[in-house]
């Protein structure tokens, strides 16, 4: 058809371009309209109480990841923003905070904090509302293995199941045979009790004694005495900084020949610990588990990058070893990146979609690991036993890895 004339072509082209432009403008207009409203990520952690340091690390880790993502253009064309609430370790606050956060539109997921009890408290609500709950620290086994289907909880952190076994192995390798368990009387303590006793039995060791304490306990000497009477040769501790301090004080007050070595979960590292028991710390043998440590990171380059990014945002810290609660930093960082990937994959801010998308991420090069994949429908814990190390406080109060086993 030669009949189409040049002027006709001109017209079609102009109309096509106009239409395309209009559509583009429309789309971009809708995007920019949306651009005004960032995608929110909630963070509910202890920001001001005894584990404030963990909350701070987690929020900083999240922020660093956020900045990086926003620098790349954000997710789904929108920037990410962090909304932080403080539950002060109080599960009831946690529940109210959770409700408040989840009520926000545009809030796609909530990061948790250090406290397993809070996590456990909010689980029903999380699943009732149906918001992804990302755990960068709380290690209680039932937090992730919660029986809910679909499971909205994802974790890049320690799971007590293998943490307990790891700690018992550490004791075993050191030649101890009669472990005394000193556990906090909460879900976290209970989950460890299960894991540890199972690990002890499987290694033909003995559980000499199991002592429980409540939050706020002021004197652990009776529990220690009971352990000694039962003939324990090592103390496996599951406690938070306040109670950990109480134990260290009690242990240091014993005559040197009566003191027992302490192999602890990482709860005590979540807050100001070393500085509070500086003198007594030198009198006792205390080791605990960690995942990420700047002195021995799984991927030194990525760790360096992370630190540089940290320094850009928080230039007051000069020595990376001075960064408190480093695991929280690394875990939160990886979690936010993973979330971003999921949001992209989901293609929307639909929470359920994002939940599903998290399960389908293929692989991710994180600071903690090369996740391949990070989560599966059956496994919502991204890290495994391989990520655990044993650490201690050095004389400066920094967390340093313990070399050997």
């Amino acid at each position, binding site marked *: 058809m030669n009949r189409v004339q040049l002027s006709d072509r001109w017209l079609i082209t102009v109309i096509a371009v106009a239409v395309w432009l209009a559509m583009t403008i429309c789309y971009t207009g809708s995007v920019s309209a949306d651009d005004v409203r960032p995608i929110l990520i909630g963070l509910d952690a*202890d920001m001001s*109480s*005894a*584990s404030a340091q963990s909350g701070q690390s987690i929020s900083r880790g999240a922020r660093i990841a956020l900045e990086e993502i926003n620098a790349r253009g954000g997710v789904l064309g929108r920037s990410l923003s962090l909304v932080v609430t403080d539950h*002060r*370790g*109080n*599960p*009831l*606050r946690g529940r*109210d905070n959770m409700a408040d956060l989840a009520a926000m539109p545009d809030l796609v997921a909530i990061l948790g904090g250090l406290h397993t*009890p809070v996590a*456990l*408290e909010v689980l029903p609500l999380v699943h009732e509302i149906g918001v992804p709950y990302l755990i960068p620290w709380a290690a209680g086994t039932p937090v992730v293995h919660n029986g809910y289907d679909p499971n909205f909880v994802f974790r890049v952190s320690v799971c007590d199941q293998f943490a307990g076994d790891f700690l018992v192995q550490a004791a075993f390798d050191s030649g101890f045979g009669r472990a005394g368990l000193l556990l906090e*009387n*909460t*879900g976290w303590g209970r989950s460890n009790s299960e894991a540890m006793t199972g690990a002890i039995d499987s290694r033909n060791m003995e559980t000499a004694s199991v002592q429980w*304490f*409540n*939050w*706020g*306990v*002021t004197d652990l000497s009776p529990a220690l005495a009971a352990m000694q009477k039962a003939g324990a040769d090592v103390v496996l501790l599951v406690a*938070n900084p*306040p109670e950990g301090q109480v134990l260290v004080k009690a242990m240091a007050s014993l005559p040197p020949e009566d003191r027992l070595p302490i192999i602890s979960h990482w709860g005590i590292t979540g807050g100001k610990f070393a500085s509070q028991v500086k003198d007594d710390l030198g009198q006792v043998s205390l080791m605990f588990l960690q995942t990420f440590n700047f002195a021995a990171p799984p991927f030194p380059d990525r760790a360096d990058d992370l630190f540089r990014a940290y320094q850009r945002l928080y230039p007051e810290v000069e020595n990376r070893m001075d960064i408190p609660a480093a695991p929280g930093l690394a875990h939160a960082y990886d979690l936010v990146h993973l979330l971003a990937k999921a949001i992209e994959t989901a293609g929307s801010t639909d929470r359920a979609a994002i939940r599903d998308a998290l399960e389908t991420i293929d692989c991710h090069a994180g600071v903690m690991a090369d996740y391949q994949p990070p989560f599966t429908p059956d496994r919502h814990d991204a890290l495994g036993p391989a990520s655990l190390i044993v650490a201690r406080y050095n004389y400066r109060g920094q967390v340093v890895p313990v070399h050997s086993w």
Partner: protein
Amino acid sequence: MVRIFPPLLILVLVFIGLAYHQHARYQMKMETQRLHADAERIFQSTTERLEDLSRQAAYLAKNDFIIGSLIDARFRNEVLPVFFQSLKAHGLPVDMTGTIALLDYKGRVIAANHPMEDMPAVGAWLDDPEGGEERRQIDETGLTLISAVAIYRPGSREGAVVIRLSAFETAALMDFSHLKDGVSITTGYGSQVFHSSSHEPLPAQRLIRGRIQGNPGGWIQEVVVSSDQHRILSILRRSFFMDLGVMTGAMTLLAILLFLVVKKAVSPLEGMALSLKRIVGHEDLSIRLNVNGPAEMQHLSNHINQMLDRLGASTRSVEELQTAAQNQRILLDNIPVQIWYLKTIDTYGAVNRAHADFMGKRPENLAYKCLNEFLPPDEAAICKTGDQEVFETGEAIVSEEWLLDSAGEDRLLSITKTPRLHRDGSVEFVVCSAVDITEQRQMEIDLKTERSRLEAIITGTRAGTWEWNVQTGEAVFNERWAEIIGYTLEELNPVSIETWQKFVHPDDLAQSGALLERHFNGKLDYYQAECRMKHRGGYWVWVLDRGRVSTWTDDGRPLMMSGTHLDITESKIAEESLKKARDEADSANRAKSVFLASMSHEIRTPLSAILGFGDILGRDASLSPAQMDKVKTINRSGRHLLKLINDILDMSRIESGRVTIETAGFSLKRLLDNLESMFCLTVESKGLQWALEIPDQMPPLIAGDEARLRQVLINLVGNAVKFTTSGKITVRVHLDADKETPDLFCLTMAVADTGPGIAESDLVHIFDAFQQCQTTCQIGGTGLGLAISKRLVELMGGQITVNSQEGKGSCFQFSLPVKAAAGSMETQTIPSQIPVGLAPGSDPKRILVVDDLEVNLDLLTSILAVPGFEIRIAKNGEQALEISADWAPHAVFMDIRMPVMDGYEAIRRLKADEATAGIFIIAITAVVFEEDVEKIYDAGADRFIGKPFKAEEIFHMLGDGLGLTYEYPDPESGDAGTCDTDQKPVTLTETDMVRLPAALTQAVQDVLEIGDVYAMEQLGPEIRKIDAGVAEKIRVLVKRYDYDAILKAIPQRSLEGRRS
């Protein structure tokens, strides 16, 4: 009375009013104080309760269990509700609990004991960091207590514990203490007022209040306890007027009582007045008052009664007086004492019969007459002077006068004149009494004379006298008695028998007492004792105390005893010193004997060893003759020494009285036979005749000391044999029965010889110790034999005499009392000789000697080393058993104390085993107590012998046990050195000694002076070279130990030469 009554009444009423008012004020004050105290108490207790509640809330808030429940869902849901249900607020009554709840940070209820609304206000309070730990509120709704709960970090406010009480419950918490009074409590923290129970509020003016204010900002602001004034007052009124009424009533009652009592007391006086009235009216004196009333009235009536009695008593009838006067008359006239009254100096008053008789008149003629009529003028004058004195002085006088009686005899009268004075001091009359003391005076004079005679005698004899009332203990001593012990009688006063007892030596007192007893019992006619009494100078004086009971009581007990003391101190002292000297001599004598004996004993022991081994050596056939000679010398010397020592010992024992004469039955015949056999060889060898004359009838056994008798006989016969060179020796025995006592005999034994006899001068001293006459010196001996024999004979109760004529011979004779002994006891005599071997034809005997000490083994084996004995030794019981088993000894000498196995055990085992049971075991032991002996025989030993033992005993026992017959050696030199060398008298003269060179003589002298026999023997050959005869003489003398004889013969010049 009426006048003073109204003012008094007004006064009383005023006082009552004042008292009432004071009382009321006081009561009000008390009440206020009480209310105040109550208010204080209520304040404290209510505050305390509220505080307690606050503490409870705080405790719950800080409880880590509760904190843990805020954190952990499981606890929160499962445990906490149940726990809270159990909670109750402190301080509430049983049926109330209050509301206790746990709220979360927003004020929502987590758990509570009762259903409760949420409290958002609490949430707001928790949000406020300045809210403080606790909040308190008390308002119309009640009490609210909020305590913040911190979790995880001190100071965090994450929850709250709330205690709520309703208004009702709060009111229940208030402590109203169930008072009747009205209490109102105003609380702080809201200022709520609580009142106690339902009280009608009273108008304010009627209230008494006790009020306590609390600190601002405290639980309680104010507590007011109030009570009703009117109530107090009404109580007060009641009590007051009741008291008043009681008081008044009491007073009235008292007044009435008093009135009645007084009335009663006064009534008896009426009766009394009546009675007195009657008495005064002389109606009847015999009335006595009888008053019943108070004590004072009684006394008064009693005194009045007494007064009436007196009155009655004094009105006695004249007849009574007259009767009395008559009685007096009779009395006066019958007493032998002269009594007369003097109205004036020379006028009689009444006189009694005695006086009238003296004067030779009748009483009625004398009475009231003038004195001068009856008395001779001189007598009258004397009387007058005496009377004058009395009348003038008004004092009694006593005098003695010689007066003529009616018979014209001079009588001595003791006259007493006593005046009777008027009230004004003048003499009314004088009563004179006179006693005839003429006889009495004479007696006194006689007594005095007698006394002085006695005094003279006693003083002449310088005897102290004592008179003792045995029953009462009173005693009278004279001056000399006291003087003997250096006192004056005055110093010793008061004396009694105790005085004497005090001074007497306690021992003598006892003896004196005993003698007194015997005298009192009639056993002694006179009592005599020598007593020591302590002189004033502190020493004892000897007093010869003699006396006799002079009077006895009716029942035969001694009453009075009298006696004398003589100072015999001097004679006693003489006596004592004499006794002391004698004692000293005796003890010196005895000491000497003891010394001798102990020394001899010390010497004897080693000497026995010397003799023992000497004997053994003497039987050793391997010695050369020269050696044997020397050995014999040793033995001889030893035996001589032994004999000497034995004799000395014997002597000393006899002298110190330690020899006891045994009395046992023995055969005189056998003794004499032994004697004969002992000397027969010697007698034969000397060519003497021996005759033994014994009576035909001799009792088989006589009781006496065989050993001592033998000793005496050996001595006498030995002497006879020793000194007689030719002739005959006769031993005569007589037994004369005593006529009176059938069993008693007089044993006379005489030993006569035809020897050289004894010079008369020597005869005297022949029985003295260590006296040897010329001849015996040359012959040898110890010099004690006869002395011992004499003493032994005397000890045995007999006498020894000697008859001798020089050249003819001597006869020693002694006689003893003996008794015939019953029975025919065969006392074994151990031959005092050691056998040299078994009799020929005997089988050899095997003897085992067991002893752990070498020395003892040696001794025994040496002793037993005679032909016929095979000897083996063992060191202990075990070895003994081994050897016995193999060798089968005939006899074993077993020592007891041994190691490994002792004697007892070995003996037992030997006896237990059949094979060895027949062995004759002789146990040897040093200890010989009865128990040990028993033990030895119990173990099974056949015999035992004590250490030290005699060889003869050993052989005797062996012989007995094994039935052996021994061969004895020829009797050698027996007891007293019967060598022929000893027989002949040897005289060594100066002439003999001069023959020897001076040097040799000197050597002899030196050697002899120190008694070196061996050296002397060495010198023998040298002397022999020069002069054999002299040498022989010297040899004999040396053998006899007569060194003196040799020394005497050595020329003077040598001696002198030595001395210079």
